């Protein structure tokens, strides 16, 4: 690289850090200036040497820990803690500059916001556009077993493998996924998903870290071949889900193979990951959430296909941390907990959503879990990236109607997943190793505590309704209610095929979610045209009133502090 160019980049970095107060990580640098990740690290190192005293540096350390030599750890530490952190590593560990920033952010997610946004942009580019994220050209880690074939279906001979944990850039696999997704859309999902999952540890890491990258397309993968095979009417959904599972387990086709691989690798990787990248996951998730939130707000309004639920739930979801659980098999689940970023494939989410939506309560089992969990992230994505993720889904021939609704379903799922998560997860997540994850979960729980169960029950119903309901258009209306709060109503326009029942449930749900919202803004699904209207009208107001009443009743005392909590008896 020419010296001049280097100088230019260094100056740019300085501007970014000192003037725009941006966090500049090597990943961001690599993608932004199209240099390899190693070069980016070198540049940052150089920059730190020149300007080290006026900024904060976050280093990435990787190697074996002294107290846990078995697994490979990657850790981010701030400059002052570098020496101390090195001590904890056994022997030599590699040290690189991860990012430079004007100050250490309180919220670790900030570290990754920039690169997340960047990755998102890259992923939202037209599918045919080759960008550095898709072809993984700057990644230091390549997996020769992962190849792209013409159809975009990844071929790999390698089963689950554990590699280096840190994959900074999207892997080929992702690319493959994307392609396949684009081409085959739903049908491919199964295959794609499996590959994605199947990616060795690096991938997992990637997911966690660079999730930001995997927006729409990338995520689609996790659907299994089942989709292909079983592309069938709604009733089949349940079966589908199950079938997915089974298929992956049995491992008949290549896709299955992948699926299985993915499962295994994931579980493994996750286990390891918990040690390795705990902070990251959390951070990433948060970062995404943040990013999503911002986007969600804006985009949701525009979404035609997204249903009310989506909006409500979506907003909610965005607020919370997402935990992605991968339960490949029932028992493996425990280890499989992954704090993944919302990046999971949208396509997948769509399909899954469909499926899951159909799968009723009965599906609460692990399958649902997986899907749902994954869905969440996807949902986010959808919200943020609506354009991309949605189109492919809709195009699917098999489940056209569903597809169109995919947006809706997604949202619903999200909601559902949340509650379930809370309930089920807690139980399943016992492992101490995952403290971080747990923490994350707990957080979510807390936030969601208020409405956990509703979500679950309603979700099912909702899903059904939503999934089937044909195209509708949602419109947001904002008004000020009698209590002086801003109420955002989602109004549906368009034909409605769904059963009233579904609607009502849906509305209910929407309401619940609304209530959940932290904001004063209450989003409620009110005016629904046609059949839905009745139910909506009833449910909506009811809920609101109930809520209001509850508040008032409860308010005074709960909020009032007790003097005894400040002064102790003598």
């Amino acid at each position, binding site marked *: 690289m020419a010296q001049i160019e280097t100088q230019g980049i260094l100056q740019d970095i300085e501007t970014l850090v000192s003037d725009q107060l941006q966090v500049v990580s090597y990943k961001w640098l690599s993608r932004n200036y199209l240099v390899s990740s190693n070069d980016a690290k070198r540049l940052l190192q150089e920059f730190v040497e020149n300007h080290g005293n006026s900024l904060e540096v976050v280093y990435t350390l990787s190697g074996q820990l002294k107290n846990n030599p078995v697994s490979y750890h990657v850790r981010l530490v701030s400059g002052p803690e570098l020496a101390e952190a090195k001590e904890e590593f056994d022997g030599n560990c590699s040290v690189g500059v991860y990012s430079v920033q004007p100050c250490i952010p309180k919220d670790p997610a900030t570290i990754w916001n920039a690169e997340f946004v960047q990755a998102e942009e890259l992923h939202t580019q037209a599918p045919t556009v080759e960008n550095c994220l898709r072809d993984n050209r700057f990644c230091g880690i390549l997996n020769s077993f992962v190849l792209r074939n013409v159809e975009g279906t990844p071929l790999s001979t390698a089963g689950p493998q554990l590699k280096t944990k840190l994959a900074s850039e999207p892997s080929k696999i992702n690319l493959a996924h994307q392609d396949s997704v684009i081409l085959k859309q739903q049908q491919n999902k199964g295959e794609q998903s499996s590959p994605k999952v199947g990616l060795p540890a690096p991938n997992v890491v990637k997911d966690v870290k660079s999730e930001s990258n995997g927006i729409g397309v990338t995520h689609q993968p996790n659907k299994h071949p089942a989709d292909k095979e079983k592309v069938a009417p709604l009733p089949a959904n349940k079966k589908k889900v199950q079938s997915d599972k089974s298929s992956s387990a049995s491992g008949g086709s290549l896709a299955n193979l992948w699926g299985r691989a993915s499962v295994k690798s994931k579980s493994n990787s996750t286990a390891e990951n918990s040690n390795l990248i705990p902070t990251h996951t959390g951070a990433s998730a948060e970062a995404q959430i943040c990013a999503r939130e911002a986007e969600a707000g804006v985009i949701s309004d525009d979404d035609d296909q997204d249903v009310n639920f989506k909006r409500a739930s979506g907003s909610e979801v965005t607020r919370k941390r997402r935990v992605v659980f991968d339960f490949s098999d029932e028992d493996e689940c425990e280890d499989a907990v992954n704090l993944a970023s919302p990046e999971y494939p949208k396509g997948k989410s769509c399909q899954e959503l469909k499926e899951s939506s159909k799968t009723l309560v009965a599906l609460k089992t692990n399958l649902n879990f997986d899907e749902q969990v994954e869905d969440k992230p996807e949902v986010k994505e959808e919200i943020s990236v609506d354009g991309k993720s949605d189109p492919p889904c809709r195009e699917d021939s098999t489940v056209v109607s569903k597809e169109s609704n995919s947006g809706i379903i997604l949202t619903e799922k999200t909601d559902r997943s949340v509650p379930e998560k809370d309930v089920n997860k807690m139980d399943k997540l016992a492992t101490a190793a995952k403290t971080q994850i747990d923490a994350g979960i707990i957080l979510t729980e807390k*936030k969601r*505590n*208020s*409405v956990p169960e*509703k979500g679950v029950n309603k979700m099912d119903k909702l899903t059904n309704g939503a999934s089937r309901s044909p195209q509708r258009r949602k419109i947001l209306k904002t008004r000020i209610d009698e209590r*002086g709060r801003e109420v955002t109503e989602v109004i549906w326009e368009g034909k409605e095929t769904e059963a009233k029942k579904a609607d009502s449930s849906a509305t209910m749900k929407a309401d*619940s979610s609304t*209530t*959940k*919202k*932290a*904001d*004063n803004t*209450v989003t409620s699904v009110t005016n629904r045209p046609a059949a839905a209207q009745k139910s909506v009208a009833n449910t909506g107001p009811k809920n609101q009133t*109930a*809520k209001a*009443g*509850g*508040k008032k009743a*409860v*308010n*005074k005392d*709960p*909020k*009032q*502090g*007790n*003097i*005894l*909590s*400040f*002064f*102790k*008896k*003598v």
Partner: protein
Amino acid sequence: MLELRLVQGSLLKKVLESIKDLVTDANFDCSATGFSLQAMDSSHVALVALLLRSEGFEHYRCDRSISMGMNLGNMSKMLKCAGNDDIITIKADDGSDTVTFMFESPTQDKISDFEMKLMDIDSEHLGIPEAEYHAIVRMPSAEFARICKDLSGIGDTVVISVTKEGVKFSTRGDIGTANIVCRQNTTVDKPEEATIIEMNEPVSLTFALRYMNSFTKASPLSNTVTISLSSELPVVVEYKIAEMGYIRFYLAPKVEEDEDETKPQV
């Protein structure tokens, strides 16, 4: 043997008037240092601490520390029988279950004697740690009382925010919102009319106006009120009692939370 002679009997009357609505029963603790009371309201949200130092009494005799449980309503009834200019003497014998209030008119023309039964009260004496407050506002007590009264017509709670600009009292109710800002003002003829704000860091706390209004019943005791605020601590509303002590009201802040977020849905 206990004998406390208070020349300015009206002080005691005012004290009782200021706390009897907040606390129904309380123990008066008499020791060599003074006559004090500490009590919480029934909901344990507010605490009142009264101190009348022994130096403030014309005659103060307290052989040994004694705690007298009184019903403040009854005590108030008796004290109302005293004229504003009367000299009040509180007397109690060791081991006695009564307390005697003696009122002497300024001219010594009339001497009244009231004996009141004491009661056993489970006292929960709280240790109140010394604390550094983030902001201390001193302002005319009448002004504060007026603000609290006005705001209570609009909302149930008052948010007291102290910034460099001044102290802001704001409320929100069904009919609307209200904000009252008092700026620091030291250029006044009478020092008691000054509004003085000492602020180490900005504070904003929410309180129930009902209690604040109750506190302001102590306004007759003093021309100025001192409001000490600190996040994480109850607010202290203090009225000095002419040279001899103080009455302090502690009020736990309302927990500020996003109700929508944390409130379980019904």
